[in-house]
C-alpha cells in the first residue's frame, strides 16, 4: 500500500528531518508512529500524501511514486487529519465544511449530499450541521475536521496527534472509532506521543528518534523495551511500569493491556494464597 524506501528529507532551512527511513504499510494496517518532539514523525507522514517529497529515496503509494503525482490525487487515497482543526475550518456551516473536499475531488451533487450526511452522522454532528464550525467546542471542531476527511472515504487515514486537548471521554470515543475504522479494513496511521492511548489501542508501533526509526513491532514488545523507549524519550505505559517494578515476583514485564494485567495479577494472587 505505502512503501517508504530509504527516505531522506531536508527542510529549506537546512534541517535534516529524516535520515534514511524505510517502512511498509499494508492495506488494513493499524500503526502508531511515536517519538519525542522533532523526531520527524509529522515530516514522515506528510510524505504519504505528497505534501512533502523526499530529498532522497522514494515513497510509493499504491504503486505510484509520490513525486510523479499531485497532492490532490494522492489525498484521494490518503486522508490526512491535521493536529489543529483551526488550521482548516473556514466555511459558514459544518455541512459546507464537510462538503469542501468532496467538491474539490469533483464528486457529483447527489453523491456529495449522501456522503456529507453519512460523515456527519458517523461522528455524531447531526445537531450542528447548520452551525458555524467556529462556534463549536474544541472536541467538536476536531470531529468536524475528522468528518471532513472521512467523507471522501480514503483508503488510508492519517491522524496527527488525535488525542491532544481531548478529555477522557472524547479520547475513549475516538479510540473506539479508530478501532472500528480499522476493523472496516481501512489503513489507520496515528502520530502521537500519548503512550496510554496507544497501549489501549494496541496497534503496531513505530518508534522514531532524530529522524530515524529506532524500533518497530507490536506495542507489547516496543513499549515495554526500556532501552528503546528511553532512546525515543517516551515513558512506558503506567501498567508496564508497575510490572517492571514487580519483576522480583516472577511476573512478565511485557504487559500493556489493563485487562490482561488484571488477569495476571488475579492469577498470581490465587496461586500465592
Amino acid at each position: 500500500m505505502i512503501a517508504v524506501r530509504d527516505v531522506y528529507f531536508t527542510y529549506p532551512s537546512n534541517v535534516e528531518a529524516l535520515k534514511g527511513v524505510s517502512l511498509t504499510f499494508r492495506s488494513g494496517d493499524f500503526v502508531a508512529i511515536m517519538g519525542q518532539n522533532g523526531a520527524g514523525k509529522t515530516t514522515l507522514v506528510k510524505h504519504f500524501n505528497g505534501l512533502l517529497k523526499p530529498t532522497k529515496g522514494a515513497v510509493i503509494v499504491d504503486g505510484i511514486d509520490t513525486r510523479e503525482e499531485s497532492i490532490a490525487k494522492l489525498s484521494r487515497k490518503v486522508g490526512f487529519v491535521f493536529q489543529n482543526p483551526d488550521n482548516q475550518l473556514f466555511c459558514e456551516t459544518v455541512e459546507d465544511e464537510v462538503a469542501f473536499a468532496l467538491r474539490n475531488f469533483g464528486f457529483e451533487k447527489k453523491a456529495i449530499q449522501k456522503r456529507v450526511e453519512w460523515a456527519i452522522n458517523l461522528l455524531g454532528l447531526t445537531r450542528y450541521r447548520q452551525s458555524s464550525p467556529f462556534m463549536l467546542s474544541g472536541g467538536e471542531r476536531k470531529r468536524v475536521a475528522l468528518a471532513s476527511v472521512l467523507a471522501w472515504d480514503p483508503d488510508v487515514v492519517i491522524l496527527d496527534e488525535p488525542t491532544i486537548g481531548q478529555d477522557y471521554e472524547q479520547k475513549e470515543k475516538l479510540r473506539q472509532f479508530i478501532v472500528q475504522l480499522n476493523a472496516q479494513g481501512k489503513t489507520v496511521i496515528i502520530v502521537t506521543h500519548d503512550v496510554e492511548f496507544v497501549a489501549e489501542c494496541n496497534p503496531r508501533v513505530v518508534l522514531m528518534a532524530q529522524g530515524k526509526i529506532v524500533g518497530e513491532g507490536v506495542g507489547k514488545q516496543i513499549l515495554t523495551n526500556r532501552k528503546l523507549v528511553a532512546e525515543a524519550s517516551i515513558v512506558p505505559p503506567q501498567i508496564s511500569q508497575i510490572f517492571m517494578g514487580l519483576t522480583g515476583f516472577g511476573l512478565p514485564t511485557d504487559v500493556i493491556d489493563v485487562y490482561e494485567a488484571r488477569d495476571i495479577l488475579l492469577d498470581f494472587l490465587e496461586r500465592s494464597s
Partner: protein
Amino acid sequence: MSVFEGFRFRKVFSRVHELDPRVKFFYVCAVFVIAVMFNQLLPLILLFFIQLPFVLVAGVEREWIRSMKGASFLAIMIFLFNFVFTYFYTEYPTFPPSSSLLEYSLAMTLRFLVLVESFSIFFLTTSPDRLGLALEQSHVPYEFCFAFTTAVRFVPVLAEEAQTIMDAQKARGLELERGNFIKRIKNYIPILIPLIVSAIRRSLELAEAMESRAWGATDKRTNLYVLKIKRGDYILAMISICMLILAVYIWIFLRDQIPPLIPLITT
C-alpha cells in the same frame, strides 16, 4: 514565503549584529537616499557591492541570498515594466531599443535590489528586541514600540502557520494553481480565513497574557539592557555621513559626467 525568510532574525553574533540599531538604521537611510538620488547604472552597482562586506562580516550570506532570490521575481517585473513601457512611450517606432534605455531599466532594477539588500541586512542582523529598545530610547511611546516589535516577531510565526494551513487544505484536495485568474484568487479564501481567525485569536490571547503580566502598570518603564553608542557605531556613522556627502557632491557637480556603462563594455 521566501521573501519573509530574509527578514527572519537568527540568533548569531558578529560585529554587525552588535552595532547600535539606530546607527544601522541611519546607514540604511543613507543608502536609501543615495539609491534614490541616482538613476545611472554605475553608482548603483557601486552601492550594491559596497554593502557586500556587511553580509560577509555578519555571516548571514545564506539568508541574504535567499531573500535576494525572493526579491528576484519583483526585480524582473520592474525591469520588464520599465523597459517595455519606456520603450513604447519614448522610442516606439525605432528598433532595436537603444542601449541607454536598457541601462536605465537595469539601473531601476538595481535600485530596487539595493534597497532590498540594505533593509535585509538591517533586519537580518538586528534582533526584534534590540530594535524595540532602539525605538524606545528614541522616545517613541512604548505602546508603539511594543506593537512594532510584536508585529515583526509574528511575521515568521504567521508565515509558518500559513504554510500549515496550506498543507491542511491541499490535503483536502484544494489545488491553488488551478483555474483562471479569478478562480486562483478565490482559491486562497480557504487559506486566508483560518489564518485571520487564528491571528485574531492569538492577539486576544496575547492581550490577556500581557494584562496578567502587569502591562502598563507604571508610566516610566526601565530596561534591563540599555543601548550605548560604541566605537564601531561611530565608525559606521562616519562612513554613512561620508558616503552621503560624497554622493551629494557627485550629484551636484559631476552628475552629467557619470559614464554610461553599456557603451564602455561593448567598445
